[in-house]
């Protein structure tokens, strides 16, 4: 995945701004405190990913959300670089829960079908076996010789029933693609 979008130098047009976006986000679980951010930059300066990425800047993402740059932020590749280490959340002087705001934005992007393949693979695997990874048969068999008890079998039927009605999974099951795109 290339790093673009948030670092995009494309000029922002007034028509891109959606003034309602920030209020929508303020009502969602995890991004309630978005409006409290005053752009001090603690999140970005403490972010281990920002240190090595040319474009991932949590402060920029928060500002884009506040400004209502809905499309630009949701289509941004860099949104997916957050490692969820929660350093920004713990250190934010305004208690914005930065990592949770980014998670809310990712969820919205995923609903639109913008989601890296790795997450689709994991979601598919959870539906199939209950586990996020396809555990090789060889590993499962080797357990006995390693003195380990058998690997508990997942109950995929029960998992599927529990996830009934969840938008992301419905789209995944229907078209094999979240967001149906």
């Amino acid at each position, binding site marked *: 995945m290339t790093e673009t979008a948030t670092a995009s130098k494309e000029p922002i047009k007034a028509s891109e701004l959606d003034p309602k976006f920030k209020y929508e986000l303020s009502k969602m679980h995890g991004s309630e405190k978005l409006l409290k951010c005053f752009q001090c930059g603690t999140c970005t300066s403490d972010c281990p*990913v920002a240190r090595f990425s040319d474009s991932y800047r949590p402060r920029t993402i928060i500002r884009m959300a506040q400004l209502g740059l809905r499309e630009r932020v949701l289509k941004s590749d860099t949104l997916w670089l957050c*490692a969820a280490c929660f350093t920004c959340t*713990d250190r934010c002087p305004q208690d914005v829960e930065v990592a949770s705001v980014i998670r809310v934005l*990712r969820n919205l992007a995923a609903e639109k079908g913008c989601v890296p393949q790795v997450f689709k693979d994991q979601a598919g695997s959870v539906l199939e076996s209950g586990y996020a990874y396809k555990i090789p048969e060889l590993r499962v068999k080797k357990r006995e010789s390693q003195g380990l008890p058998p690997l508990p079998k997942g109950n995929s039927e029960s998992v599927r029933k529990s996830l009934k009605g*969840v*938008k*992301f999974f419905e789209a995944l099951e229907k078209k094999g693609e979240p967001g149906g795109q």
Partner: protein
Amino acid sequence: MGSKYLIFLGCAVPYRVAAYEISARKILRKLGVELVEMPEFNCCGLPLDPVSHETMLILAARNLALAEQQGLNILTLCPGCAGTLKKVNKILKADKSLREQINGHLNEAGLEFKGTVNTKHIVQVLMEDVGLASIKSAVVKPLTMLQVAEHVGCHLLRPKEYIGFDDPEDPQFLKTLIEATGATCLDYIDETECCGAPSVGVSDKVALQLARDKLNHVKEAGAQALITICAFCHIMFDTNEVRIERMFNEAYGIPVLHYPQLLGLAMGMTPEELAFNELRVDTSKLLKIVADGAK
């Protein structure tokens, strides 16, 4: 003594990190912690939180509901699993309407979340249930000849509001547990930083740069080994160490041990028993230092 837990393996441990499970089960048995297998559990939910928060809540709550049926608290080897199960337990206990919404999903599968069990990571069980005194008295071969570094990782500590364990800015528990084996635990720059694992698959280059940065600091500190307590962190440093060396033209050769392997050695178990053969980075030099020092 006499603790009994359901063991929640999660996905990464059975997928790729057998040595962690093998060594953890051995030391826990010897320290009097009884483990009961957890049937039909599923992914803790954390990996899917980025794409669907609701999914994460349902998956975590399903695991908690299963544990509630057994009437046993949960022990995990993965801090991500522990953090997620703790966090969701707390969120759903506090938010009635969300709890009802999630229970609506679980009811479809004949399950219900009540909020009656707790989750602990193995480090927390060692500190709180077993206790330092018991651990120290189980150490028969003190590893005083070793100087190691710790990597606590993120999810055992952060976000502090939900985890409420140790000090995220200056964590002490793993260090204390390492020192209980007789080894010295060295400080190094950016000790509490992320290993980069969650960014693998999105940008391997950025993820590996994070791990490289940490390995550089661990090397500068002069550590003979790096000690982890997380499957993902271990994969980043052990499985990927050679890849990082090649990619960035570095040379580390730093063995990466799961904490239970270190403790197991100090408790008199052999490297074979503790599945040292499963580790990617060569540990023969390290084991020679231990063997020579023990004479």
